[in-house]
């Protein structure tokens, strides 16, 4: 099936990051079309397209777009989640650096559909190049009357700001991101059904739409070509439509972002990335650090799709796809994963704060050759105590990779505990 370049089609053309070049290559047709339709029609196109959120959870985009009040009583806000922090993922970075106008146009379309007055792109503080690229694009769009007052003479007003993060993975979680944007510590907030949805009460208690960079970047294509056209891409899958960008890294010859149609076999990503380097394929973490690891056999069967990936025991997630060769010590890899979650836990709730610490400590002693026979059982217990019991998704995301690896690569953990050292000879 190979690559299906939709969002990234012109990413190698520097002109695409300028307004002139972007418009020459079809840019802003989507917004023009949207402005000629009524708001509900725009939302219906997104519904027809089957677009699901690309930030990790795969929630249908149109439901959120449709969730903001139609009768406006307060300002409406739009947020673009550009905090890309999931280890293994670097697609939002490339989109912002090479296709910034897709994000600006996509957000403007969403602003029209949801009657948003002000938008914020929350970019992680380390992404200076991406932020500069977005800045240039926003400045150009203002100059051309594509942002600000009376956009394209159609009577629509939309202000777009950049807000940068300052080093916190947890701020990618949408409620924590909103706390951070409002000038607080990046702690998550109570969620539906215990609190109203952000589409009703988000930023400053106003209706707020939050989507990922890649999600917004799909909108111009959905509007210019139609939702039905978009839905025809990836139609072989159960419930995944369009394309998905995978950030492929690890032991591969040509690491990078590869955009494929849903329904593509996972092994094609490996082929696109030039195949394995330094040894045969042993394992793959297909969707970012939070998703369960697959062994080589499961990789052979895996089809890229939200449901299809779950059938083999993992997830599409954010699309951070790490291929690992036969010399990889899986125990060490999972130990490093647990270190990440321990470091990034915000500390608000006990299951995650204590659980991520204990998972790390147990894995640390296993790795040091001090593991006890009961440690594997203990790790599984801790995972169960965190999963579904933590205040936000970070806790679950910390438990899944550990629980998954204990299932698929149990023999490696057992070897460590029994012999005090790795099963894997260092390559």
């Amino acid at each position, binding site marked *: 099936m190979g690559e299906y370049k939709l969002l990234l089609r012109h990413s190698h053309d520097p002109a695409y990051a300028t307004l002139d070049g972007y418009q020459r290559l079809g840019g802003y047709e989507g917004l023009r079309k949207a402005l000629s339709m009524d708001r509900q029609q725009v939302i219906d196109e997104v519904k027809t397209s089957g677009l699901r959120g690309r930030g990790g959870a795969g929630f249908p985009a149109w439901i959120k777009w449709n969730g903001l009040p139609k009768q406006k009583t307060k300002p409406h806000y739009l947020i673009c989640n550009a905090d*890309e*922090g*999931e*280890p*293994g*993922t*670097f697609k939002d*970075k490339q989109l912002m650096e090479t296709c910034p106008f897709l994000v600006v146009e996509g957000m403007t379309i969403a602003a029209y559909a949801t009657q948003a007055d002000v938008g914020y792109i929350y*970019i*992680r*503080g*380390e*992404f*200076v190049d991406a*932020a*500069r690229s*977005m*800045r240039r694009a*926003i*400045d150009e769009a*203002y*100059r051309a009357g594509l942002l600000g007052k009376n956009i394209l003479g159609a009577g629509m007003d939309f202000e777009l*700001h*950049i*807000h*940068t*993060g*300052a*080093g*916190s*993975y947890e701020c990618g979680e949408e409620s924590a991101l909103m706390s*951070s*944007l*409002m*000038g*607080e*510590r*990046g702690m998550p907030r109570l969620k539906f059904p215990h609190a109203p949805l952000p589409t009703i009460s988000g930023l*400053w208690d106003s209706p707020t739409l939050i989507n990922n960079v890649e999600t917004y970047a799909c909108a111009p294509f959905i509007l210019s070509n139609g939702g039905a056209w978009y839905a025809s891409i990836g139609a072989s899958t159960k419930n995944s439509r369009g394309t998905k960008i995978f*950030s*492929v*890294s*690890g*032991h591969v010859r040509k*690491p*990078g*972002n590869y955009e494929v149609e849903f329904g593509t076999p996972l092994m094609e990503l490996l082929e696109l990335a030039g195949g394995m380097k330094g040894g045969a394929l042993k394992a793959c*973490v297909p969707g970012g*650090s939070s998703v369960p690891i697959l062994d080589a056999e499961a990789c052979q069967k895996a089809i890229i799709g939200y449901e299809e990936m779950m059938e083999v025991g993992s997830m599409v997630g954010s699309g*951070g796809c*790490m291929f*690992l060769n036969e010399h*990889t010590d899986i125990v*060490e*890899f999972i130990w*490093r*994963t647990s270190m*990440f979650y321990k*470091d*990034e836990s915000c500390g608000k709730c006990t299951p995650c704060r204590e659980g991520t610490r204990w998972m790390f400590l147990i894995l640390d002693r296993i790795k040091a050759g001090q593991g006890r026979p009961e440690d594997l059982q203990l790790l599984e217990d801790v995972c169960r105590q965190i999963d579904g019991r933590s205040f936000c998704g970070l806790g679950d995301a910390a438990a899944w990779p550990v629980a998954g690896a204990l299932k698929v690569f149990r023999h490696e953990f057992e070897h460590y505990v029994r012999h005090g050292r790795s099963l894997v000879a260092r390559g």
Partner: protein
Amino acid sequence: MSQSPDTPNLRFSAKAVAELESLKTHYPNLKACILPALWIAQREYGGHLPPEAIAEVAHRLKRSPAEVQGVATFYSMYNTGHKPGRHMIEVCTCLTCSVCGAWDVAAYLEQKLGIKMGETTPDGMFTLHGVECLNACDRAPLIQVGDEYHGPMDEQKIDALLERLRNEPESKVVALADALVQVHLKEEEREKARRAAEAVRN
């Protein structure tokens, strides 16, 4: 200077004051300006946020210093602790980088600079730091220095980079803070700040 006892020593330049005034128009309240104002402060105070910097941000945004301090300490990129060296070298040791040689990069840097992760060279030139995924794993093993990403790294590239940084008088920590302030500002807002700085100079 005659200031009321509650007014901290104010050190923001005219440019910084103009930048902050523009930022205030981006949000419905002053509290939301805390994060961007901390970037301004980190630049104005030379790459570091000592208690006086926190007090100045709090004063300018009409918040309490305790609140601003609480916010600043949550985020790893605000340097509220020890003053970092002129250049901060952040070594990614996260998943992809760790399986692509990050531990060797870290060890080589430690040996070259004669310090451990988290330490600063005695001459105040370099601070070494291990960090979590910088989300450019296609360039593993990756390091970040201020507003620059470098990777994939090897010993030769590290040597060349250190050499360049030794001859770089501008602090990369300050460069990063300034870059992040600038991306918040629209064209005309950056121009306004430039004019404010000029007015003081003349």
